[in-house]
């Protein structure tokens, strides 16, 4: 059925999901012609940040490429919940090979397309934080170093959630997982964005599902570059973070507003833009609503751990200039 035109009343407002903007300024998701790359019917949990993030990223990529993109997926939640044979929720060409090789498989796809002269088709690799910062790091670093024409997206929920919430190299300090019952012991986890930047690849960006407009922008911007690109998206996991499924966006926003998760862009290894924090909050505001940090506020409060997490956030704020004044109280 054709999309109906609607009588003009008002434009120029971000209200009601920015539908009142001029069509060319509206979000990808506001477009009825969007790809719906990850369509309905998949088996993700309610409130899954990864499902939300993946749909926004891929729809933006598909719009940026005129529906000419191929996706390579690492093993993990995103793969399992989207493709229980004989069903698939993907409306993009999609290949799953293994847990630790998605960047290399994406390289192979890109090499094949290049050899075949299909320069119009672009390649996206994607996976969770376990597949990216741990088991897939070798292949990812190789892909970066060769500057292969691939956008790799990491949906970071801070643990191996698909296998039942175990610790990964991206699990934050203090978080309880099923393999860190007393709380993860060391700092903020591996910072893949910084590792990516150290490879001096053309484009690195971070984003969260709290600012989906920003996420769409970064996925779109990434497609303006050729060569290796990296997008790191914070995606709360209600199951692993022990939060309500309705709190996903809120928690992701608190991660940025406390400085726990810096949102920035980097071109050729140098930071070019950061999302400033408008209302800086203490990390406690981010930690307290999450069950995985409940032990820090229990009968024996762990002020030492909270201070250490705050110190990490302060370091982020200083390093990336997340607030207008660099001084932190």
């Amino acid at each position, binding site marked *: 059925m054709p999309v109906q035109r609607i009588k003009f009343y008002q434009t120029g407002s971000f209200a009601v999901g920015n539908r009142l903007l001029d069509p060319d300024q509206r979000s990808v998701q506001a477009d009825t012609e969007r790809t719906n790359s990850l369509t309905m019917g998949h088996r993700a949990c309610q409130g899954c940040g990864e499902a939300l993030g993946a749909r926004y990223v891929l729809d933006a990529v598909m719009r940026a490429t005129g*529906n*000419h*993109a*191929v996706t*390579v*997926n690492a093993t993990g939640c995103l*793969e*399992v919940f989207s*493709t*229980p*044979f*004989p*069903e*698939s929720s*993907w*409306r*993009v*060409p*999609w*290949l*799953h*090979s*293994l847990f*630790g*090789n998605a960047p*290399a*498989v*994406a*390289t*192979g*796809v*890109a*090499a*094949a*397309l*290049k*050899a*075949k*002269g299909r320069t119009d*088709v672009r390649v996206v690799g994607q996976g969770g934080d376990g597949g990216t910062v741990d088991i897939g790091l*070798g*292949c990812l*670093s*190789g892909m970066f*170093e*060769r500057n*292969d024409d691939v956008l790799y997206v990491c949906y970071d929920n801070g643990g191996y959630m698909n296998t039942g919430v175990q610790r990964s190299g991206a699990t934050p300090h203090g978080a309880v997982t099923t393999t860190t019952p007393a709380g993860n012991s060391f700092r903020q986890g591996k910072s893949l964005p910084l590792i990516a930047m150290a490879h001096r690849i053309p484009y690195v960006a971070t984003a969260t599902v709290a600012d989906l407009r920003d996420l769409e922008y970064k996925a779109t911007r990434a497609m303006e570059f050729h060569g290796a690109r990296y997008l790191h998206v914070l995606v709360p996991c209600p199951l692993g973070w022990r939060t309500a499924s309705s709190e996903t966006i809120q928690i992701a926003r608190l991660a940025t507003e406390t400085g726990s998760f810096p949102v920035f862009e980097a071109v050729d290894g140098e930071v070019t833009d950061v999302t400033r924090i408008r209302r800086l909050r203490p990390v406690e505001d981010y930690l307290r609503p999450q069950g995985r940090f409940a032990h820090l506020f229990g009968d024996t409060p762990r002020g030492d751990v909270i201070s250490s997490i705050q110190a990490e956030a302060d370091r982020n704020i200083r390093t990336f200039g997340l607030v207008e004044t660099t001084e932190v109280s």
Partner: protein
Amino acid sequence: MRSQIEGSRAVAETVARCRPEVVCAYPISPQTHIVEALSVLVASGELAPCEFVNVESEFGAMSVAIGASAAGARAYTATASQGLLYMAEALYNASGLGLPIVMTVANRAIGAPINIWNDHSDSMSQRDSGWIQLYAETNQEAADLHVQAFRIAEELSLPVMVCMDGFVLTHAVEGIDVPSQEQVDAFLPPFGPQQVLDPDDPMTIGAMVGPDAFTEVRYLAHAKHLRALEVIPRVADEFATTFWRSSGGLVRPYGCLGADTVVVALGSVLGTVKDTVDELRAEGVSIGVLGLTTFRPFPYDAVRAALRGARRVVVLERALAAGMGGIVTADVCGSVPDKPITTVIAGLGGRPVTKKSLRGLLTDAVADRLEPLTFLDLKHDVVERELS
């Protein structure tokens, strides 16, 4: 044209004439000369269009090949030994996804203890990976098998390993007739993938399959291998018609008809075995040789037919399954369960298999003096000292 070149060079030039579109490379001895030569052919533009990808590991090499093949490109890589094991997870994935990748395995031992010399421990360890395995007896056959491998792989949508003995073949310089471009083009049509990642026709490849369908998927994989038993000899016949020489196929019987004793072996050792057997036959010993060119799928019927008249079978193995014995023996037993079979473990980690030793061994074999499991040229004093 026949020229004096190194085995690796012959394989590289032959592979180039098969027009691969993506070649991935990670160095490991004794395979490295092959990908070095290919990198030069790509850089000079002699092999084009082709993307040569220098990867960060063998796991990455097979993964790049998987992506390339799934995107519809003819993909090739080469490895050996530890490298083959490092890509093991991806090997199973490539066969499970039905991707017709061709790979050279320059056979080499596996550590510990680390050893760079030739035996078959590496490819034998991956016999159940779902890949077709072909073993070259000579450098000519190694080159020829690659041309056939692409045909077989692409007709069946299955990956093929061409196994050639490290150093013994890869580094040996001899007269080799490298197939010409015209011949290869006439024999090997362009790759028409059965499944491909295409934005104009989106497809999900690699979905999760549960208990309700997994058995059927595996059954169909087995059926594909059984079909390979028909495809492999047919491709070898067609090859003979185009190239005027015989290479490949399932098995190569040599004087098996009417022989009381038959020696079964794979790879370059067959040359020495045949020379030894020739001498023994000249002396009146009733003995023949059965070379296995195809090890996976295992050609049960062809082996049974070749061993029909044999009174005893000796399987010469270049690998050892510790705690069990001979890997190939177990399969040969499946073909001829009623015949007496002895296993000879020979040439591990590059130890030369000499005609002198073989002559002694086979003399014992025909006199029924061989232990069921014999280690050729084992230094008994050394092991007994350790065991005492």
